[in-house]
Structures are given as C-alpha cells and as structure tokens.
C-alpha cells in the first residue's frame, strides 16, 4: 500500500517534471539531464525536433527489441536450466542406487542441448539490441553535449554576385553582420 503511494507520487513528480520541461523552456531543466532520462528529449527542448524524434524513435525501437529478445532469452534459459537440473539429477539417482534408463538420459541431454543453443542464439540477439540501445544513448549524449540550442535565428549565407556598373562589371561580395 505504502509502496503503491510512493510509486504514484514518483510518477506524478516525473510527469510534472516532464511537462514543465517541455512546456516552458525558459524554466526548463538542463537539456543534458533530459537526454539522460530519455534520448531525444533534450534535443526537443533545445528546438532540434528532427534529431530529437530520431533519437527517441531509435531508443524506443532498441528498447522494444531488447525487451522482446530478453523474454525469449529468459524462456530459453529457463528451459535449459530445467533440463540441466533433470540431467544432473540422474547422477544423484545413480549414486543413490536407483537405475536410470539411458534413453531418458539421452532425451534429457538433447533437450538441454536444444535449450542451450536457443539461449545462445537469443543472447546474441539480445546483445545486438543492448548494443544498439547503448550506442543510441551514447550518441544522444554526445549530440546534446556538443550542440547548441536552436534560437530560431536564420543566418544568411554570404552571397557573391556580378553587377553591371557604368564602367563595367563588378564582382560584389555581400557579408551579413
């Protein structure tokens, strides 16, 4: 009961923190902290909506993939561990003087081997998504640390043109300050 209240209070504080940081950039928390909490959030606060969306989407895809592969891995690992326990139990049975059938031992060994192979494959995919998530997270932090907030000012490019004057053509370079 107490834990439920604490969770609700934490969620409320986080929600207020999130909404105020997005709605009022002037009073916002540092964008680096926002990006540390959720990739892309700091970029959005700084006005880089495209990059922010890209980081957030990449993070969500990575987390979703990580979650799905983690479930598969956990199932395979559990299947392997159960078979391993059964397989090792045969040794206990033999030591206790009970007879075990070689067909049962071989079937359990095959199930254990299948579970192990599946767990190895699932662990590889899980590590791929984990690596992707860490990569996105790290890139997101590097990006927010190196970038400046978008103030909305447009910088005109320097222009070079040819202009006709009475005495001939002139090469004109326009510089904005």
């Amino acid at each position, binding site marked *: 009961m107490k834990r439920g209240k604490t969770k609700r209070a934490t969620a409320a504080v986080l929600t207020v923190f999130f909404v105020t940081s997005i709605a009022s950039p002037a009073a916002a928390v*540092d964008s680096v902290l926002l990006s*540390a909490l959720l990739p892309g959030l700091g970029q959005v606060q700084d006005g880089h909506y495209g990059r922010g969306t890209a980081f957030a989407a990449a993070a969500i895809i990575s987390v979703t993939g990580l979650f799905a592969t*983690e479930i598969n891995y956990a199932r395979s690992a559990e299947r392997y561990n159960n078979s391993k326990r059964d397989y090792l139990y045969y040794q206990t049975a033999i030591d206790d003087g009970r007879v*075990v059938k*070689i067909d049962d031992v071989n079937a359990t060994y095959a199930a254990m081997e299948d579970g*192990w192979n599946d*767990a190895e494959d699932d662990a590889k995919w899980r590590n791929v998504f984990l690596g992707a*998530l860490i990569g996105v997270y790290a890139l997101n*932090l590097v990006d927010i*640390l190196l970038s400046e907030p978008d103030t909305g000012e447009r910088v005109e490019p320097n222009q070079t043109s040819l202009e006709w004057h009475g005495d001939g053509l002139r090469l004109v370079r326009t510089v904005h300050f």
Partner: protein
Amino acid sequence: MRSIHSMTIRRRAAALCLLMLLIGALGCPEHADFPTQLDLIVPPTPADFVITDEGPNPAGGQDYNLSWTISDATNVDRYRIYVLDIGTPQLQVETTNTSISVTFPFQSSGLRMSVSAVSTGNVEGGSTVGVTP
C-alpha cells in the same frame, strides 16, 4: 555561476547514465556453463532375443523360455524383462543369466516382450523386443 550550475547538472547526468548502464548490465540473467556429460557406464543392448513356447504347465498357465545374447557382459549386472502390450511397459522379472523361464496364467500368443541390460553403474541400456509364438 550559470556555467558552474550547468557543470554540476552535467556531472549528475553522467552519473545517472552510468547508474542506468550498471542496472542494465546487472539485470541481464545468464545461462550458466554447459555441463559436462555424465560419466555413465552404459551396457550393450541384448541381441537375438528368442521366445520359445514350452507348452501348458500343470497349474493351467503357459510356460515360455526366453533367451538372448550380449556382446560384452563385462559391465552387465543383470537383465530386465518387460511385457509391453499392457499399457505402459511392465517389469516382469530380473535375472543375471542370459535365459529364463517365465509363466503366464493364460495363453499369450503374440505378446510383445523386451529385454534390456542394467550395468554395474545402475544404467539401463537399450532394449530388444521379441514376440511370443
């Protein structure tokens, strides 16, 4: 002043990142090393399993003689005879010889039986099936 405040927040953010990575790394379950295969003494499978009908006995049942061969009896402790055609295989008898007489209380022509060896390491090997004549 503002830059000092910003640096503090950035340090906290970096610490938070490290904490999240640590939680992520510790939260991943691991499947332990693959166990080595058990060191079992596996007996050979009996061969040439022959069931001979020895006719009815005075008690009204039917006598059968079962015999088989084994390629290497070094690690064989005993043999197990099963009757297969009555649901799950039923252990009928155990013997240390390669032949035995069994009696059924009924005429059991076409009944399937199997013989398997049990090693000195308490492992029961493969079985050979025979059919009563």
